[in-house]
């Protein structure tokens, strides 16, 4: 045994230990700073940085400066950072591996600030299907209208051609009737010489015969008149048919236009997906961060677990806790007074003030929930207000957390609604109300975050294509016109991986704007088609109308001429008839007188012969 123990080494080791302790006294703070940095990195699974740490044995206090912890979800920003953290530590409890702090002061706490001291900047290139949705909206209806213009399939040109052919046949028929009628020649061919009297014998028999001839001429004349009337009626019928044909052309034209315009159908747009892509991004992130924060609080302060669950293969083993209710937990910060400025020197600079009570790593041992009460105000908006109130109760087997927060009249400036570079939807300025509430029971979360935007002024930024610029512009203009844009993110499901459902009134606004735009495009295209079509039809119809009018005019003219000729001949006949009748009367009188004279002469001769 004597050979086994080396007293010389023990002495050497003690001297070394004393040297180490003395050195440790001088280098304790850097060592603790290093230890804290490593602990934070392990706890939050992300890069952490501690500027300095000062442990004072005189008043058993600890002061830590310049702490920043990266966000494990997004390494380009810090989950939290603060300028100074200070408080007294119960030294006696340190021997029990317990950190008990009656009061802690946290100055200039900043949450989710861009990380400046990290090289690991995670690239976030979310695949957006918004481009596909935009592509679906082919608003180039002019082109569409032109391609749909297929004259071969049009009804009106066919009807027009048929009407032209039929009308030509009808006109030709009418003209043939007139020709066949040959009214003038027929009148001319009437044997007027047969009624000439002066040159004929003055006998009554002859006159009577002549009169008969005249009657015959009159009869012929009546036949000619009747034929002419029939022809006229036929021509009128043909004209009516021509008008009917023109009407058919009009009907066919209307049908053609209807067919041509039927190609315009409103594109099927998933407005929900569209609005989610456009403006749901931000609220999704808020909701995700909110839920993630609550999940982390559960990881940090695990609820009571009577029978520890075995982790499959943990790196560095699994720590089983044997905390006893009534005793003290491993970490307990009785009260943390918070004060600080968040987003310093930005338009969103906010002053925070409040406290968090009973922060502990073993809530079941402590038996008290953690209480949060923080209030704040935006530096550039005196009307604004912020409030966060929460109760994180992990004392029982099932965590029961309740968090409520609101931010009112937040002045937004250069606010990005979407991080996708393809759709740089910026708000130049707006006012926002953000309201959030969440209840966690065990591993499930139920909550919502609502974002109400007022007085919006959008800035589209640099859009990759002209079409897209135009498309986004009119959507954003539509959103600008609205009084209030509401976006609600409903959180449900597992607290570590929640389902976030976005509901917004932007769907209605955007769908209305797009519908209006589509209607305008449709109207433009319809007008264009109608104009072009009408011009083509009108050109052909004009020819037809001219043809019909020329026919009607010529027919009427001929008719009038023939009627006049008829009338003239009729008058002439009447005149001849009267003259002839007078002559006949005169001849009859003369003949009667002659007869009477002959008779008297004969009587006188007879009386003379008889001796009377």
């Amino acid at each position: 045994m004597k050979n086994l123990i080396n007293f010389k080494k023990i002495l050497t080791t003690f001297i070394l230990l004393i040297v180490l302790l003395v050195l440790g006294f001088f280098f304790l703070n850097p060592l603790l700073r290093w230890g804290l940095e490593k602990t934070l990195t392990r706890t939050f699974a992300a890069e952490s940085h501690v500027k300095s740490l000062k442990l004072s044995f005189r008043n058993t206090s600890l002061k830590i400066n310049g702490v920043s912890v990266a966000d494990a979800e997004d390494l380009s920003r810090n989950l939290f950072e603060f300028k100074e953290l200070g408080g007294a530590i119960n030294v006696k409890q340190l021997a029990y591996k317990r950190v008990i702090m009656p009061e802690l002061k946290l100055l200039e706490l900043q949450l989710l600030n861009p990380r400046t001291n990290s090289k690991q900047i995670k690239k976030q290139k979310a695949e957006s299907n918004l481009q596909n949705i935009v592509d679906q909206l082919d608003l180039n209806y002019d082109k569409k209208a032109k391609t749909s213009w297929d004259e071969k399939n049009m009804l009106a040109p066919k009807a027009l051609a048929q009407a032209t052919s039929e009308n030509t046949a009808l006109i030709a028929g009418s003209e043939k009737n007139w020709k066949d009628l040959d009214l003038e020649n027929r009148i001319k061919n009437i044997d007027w010489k047969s009624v000439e009297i002066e040159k004929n014998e003055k006998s009554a028999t002859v006159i009577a015969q002549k009169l008969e001839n005249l009657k015959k001429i009159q009869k012929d004349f009546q036949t000619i008149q009747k034929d002419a009337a029939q022809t006229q009626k036929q021509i009128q019928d043909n004209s009516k048919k021509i008008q009917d044909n023109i009407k058919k052309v009009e009907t066919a034209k209307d049908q053609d236009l209807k067919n041509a315009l039927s190609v315009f159908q409103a594109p099927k747009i998933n407005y929900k997906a569209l609005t989610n892509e456009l403006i749901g991004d931000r609220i999704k992130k808020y909701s995700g961060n909110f839920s993630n924060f609550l999940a982390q609080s559960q990881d940090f302060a695990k609820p009571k677990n009577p029978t520890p669950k075995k982790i499959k293969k943990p790196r560095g083993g699994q720590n089983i806790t044997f905390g006893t209710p009534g005793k003290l937990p491993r970490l307990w910060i009785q009260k943390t007074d918070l004060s600080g400025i968040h987003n310093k020197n930005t338009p969103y600079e906010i002053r925070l003030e409040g406290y968090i009570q009973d922060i502990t790593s073993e809530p079941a041992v402590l038996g008290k929930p953690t209480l949060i009460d923080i209030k704040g105000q935006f530096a550039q908006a005196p009307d604004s207000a912020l409030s966060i109130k929460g109760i994180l109760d992990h004392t029982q087997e099932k965590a029961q957390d309740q968090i409520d927060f609101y931010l009112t009249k937040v002045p937004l400036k250069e606010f990005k609604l979407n991080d996708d570079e393809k759709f740089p939807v910026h708000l130049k300025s707006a006012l926002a109300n953000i309201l959030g509430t969440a209840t966690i029971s065990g591993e499930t979360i139920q909550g919502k975050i609502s974002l109400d935007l007022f007085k919006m002024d959008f800035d589209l930024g640099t859009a990759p294509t002209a079409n897209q610029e135009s498309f986004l512009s009119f959507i954003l203009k539509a959103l600008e016109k609205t009084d209030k844009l509401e976006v609600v993110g409903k959180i449900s499901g597992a607290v570590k991986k929640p389902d976030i459902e976005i509901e917004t009134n932007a769907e209605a606004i955007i769908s209305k704007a797009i519908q209006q735009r589509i209607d305008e495009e449709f109207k433009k295209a319809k007008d264009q088609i109608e104009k072009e079509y009408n011009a083509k039809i009108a050109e052909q119809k004009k020819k037809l109308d001219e043809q019909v009018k020329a026919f009607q005019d010529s027919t009427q003219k001929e008719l009038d001429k023939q009627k006049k000729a008829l009338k003239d001949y009729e008058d002439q006949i009447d005149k001849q008839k009267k003259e002839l009748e007078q002559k006949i009367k005169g001849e009859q009188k003369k003949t009667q007188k002659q007869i009477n004279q002959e008779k008297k002469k004969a009587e006188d001769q007879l009386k003379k012969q008889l001796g009377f």
Partner: protein
Amino acid sequence: MIPYWKQFVAAVNIVHSKATSVQAGLGAVVGMFLGLLPMSINSVIIILISTFLNLDAGLMVWSTFCFATLSTFLDTFAHHLGFWMLSLPALKPIYTTLYNLPFAPFSNFNNTLVMGNTLLGIIFFFPVYFSGKKFIKMIQTASFQQKIEKFKANKIIMKVSSFLSLFNLKKKWFG
């Protein structure tokens, strides 16, 4: 490194160890615990203890190296074993008392790997102790030494250890 240079040289020159069998056995056991247990305050305490005792430094170093290699394969088993041990309801009051005692929590006894590997160390204590003893007896026999001397490698080891001894600053400075 300076205080442990001798151990390092001894590890290189283990075939010429002059340690007793008990020192060799204990050296192997201490090395085993060092190799099995995860680096923590426990390792520091073990190293300190090893410093106070006249152990076979060479065998301790080799034992540490071997068991550290072995522990990478035994970690899963050690975790299960440690979890089982820590979950025993009968022992819970003891653990709870330990957990609430000053300084005891620093031993990380409530860690499954620490507890599992400690148990494995206890199980392998005697086999490793006796194996160490037997090993040192074997290499210290005249026949083994004669066989060793025949190898060219032995000469190289001797030269290397002599060369390394030149850098034993502690011996130089403190005698």
